[in-house]
């Protein structure tokens, strides 16, 4: 299977490559429209700041390329946020694949630390990405901004507020958590995505 990872100015791309390696997939890291378009699956990972990253994507024409992809696409963490309409982080206008804004967590109690960091459970509803998830499972999160629950929510988590741990619309999938850092559970999510 030909899996492409979108190359851009984001951190944490190597852990996705390693995770796919462990599943027996050698992924291609690329920002070429041709290679991304020809891939069977595309992964759009990311750790970084929304407005800076969107600026980079636009400068390199990647915003249009990603929006026009027709094969299954998986956004991870910042990737999920950038697939939404806009983000409170730096007031960034995003890709608009999911018509929902990205908001900043507003803690109201001292035990609500931001970033939301660590293992939390997801209530999964998407039958493909979360195939075999019949009970709440723990996955690893690190983020300060969140996507509210909406009609595209594919998995939900409660932290300060209920939010979208995952989204799905047509060929576009996304997770706020890091499947590549979520042990065996994360590997199941990645394998499910590869099987779509």
């Amino acid at each position, binding site marked *: 299977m030909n899996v492409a990872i979108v190359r851009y100015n984001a*951190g*944490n791309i*190597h*852990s996705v490559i*390693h*995770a796919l*390696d*462990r599943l027996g997939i050698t992924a291609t890291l690329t920002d070429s429209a041709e290679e991304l378009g020809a891939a069977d699956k595309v992964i759009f990972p990311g*750790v*970084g*700041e929304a407005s800076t990253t969107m600026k980079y994507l636009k400068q390199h024409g990647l915003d249009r390329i990603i929006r026009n992809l027709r094969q299954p696409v998986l956004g991870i963490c910042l990737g999920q946020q950038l697939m939404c309409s806009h983000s409170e982080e730096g007031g960034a206008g995003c890709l608009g694949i999911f018509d929902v804004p990205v908001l900043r967590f507003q*803690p109201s109690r*001292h*035990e609500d*630390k*931001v*970033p*939301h*960091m*660590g*293992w*939390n*459970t997801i209530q999964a509803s998407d039958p493909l990405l979360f195939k075999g998830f019949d009970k709440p499972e*723990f996955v*690893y999160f*690190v983020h300060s901004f969140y996507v509210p629950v909406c009609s595209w929510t594919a998995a939900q988590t*409660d*932290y300060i507020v209920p939010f979208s741990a995952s989204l799905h619309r047509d060929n576009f999938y996304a997770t706020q958590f*890091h499947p*590549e*850092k*979520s*042990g*065996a559970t*994360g*590997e199941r999510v990645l394998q499910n995505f590869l099987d779509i």
Partner: protein
Amino acid sequence: MLAKRIIPCLDICNGRTVKGTNFVNLRDAGDPVELGKLYSQQGADELVFLDITASFEGRKTFTELVGRIASEISIPFTVGGGIHELSDVERLLKAGADKVSINSAALKNPGLIDEIALNFGSQVCVVAIDGKQTPEGWRCFLNGGRVPTDRMLFEWAHEAADRGAGEILFTSMDHDGVKEGYANPALRRLSRELTIPVIASGGAGKMEHFRDAFLLGEADAALAASVFHFAEIPIPELKQYLRGLNISVRL
């Protein structure tokens, strides 16, 4: 519900784990990757690898080791030791570490925290603080608790958080190695005053100590070394015990 994290810490010298271990089922307990994998399978939530090698050669070995850990272990891990400047951080993150832990370097040059946060994001920056009680209160120490500084624990922890630290790893030098429990009152104050996660370190001897770190110390995570390495406390048993007390843990 967000789980309280259990974090085994491995000391590394020249690419090998230093403290002895009691794992009979491991082919090579001196191999940090094998030990890390075992902990990951047992349910550790994160791992910390601390490089205690001083030499330049040793540092290269450690960087190579970080690359192996990243390719073989599927849970987050932090690396520390021998980090003096931003280029050290960059080298370790590029090798695949998820977070770096800085201690003396941050006390000597607090601006390093801002630099790490600005360049790589707060989430990668763990500020480790070694504290000891003195007549004036909790004081920060250097070099494993041998050298006192002019910084006080709470004031320094606030400054580190304001500068962009993502987490505070607090080790009480008074409790470290004594196995009589964590420094819970100090932990609770840190946890209540700071808006970032606090990791308890130093003092674990029994399962009850983890309970206390979470319930009394209100810590977000608890780190330990020898109780795990010598299998005095198996991680699955510890997590069952904590769950039985209604403490949220990942099982």
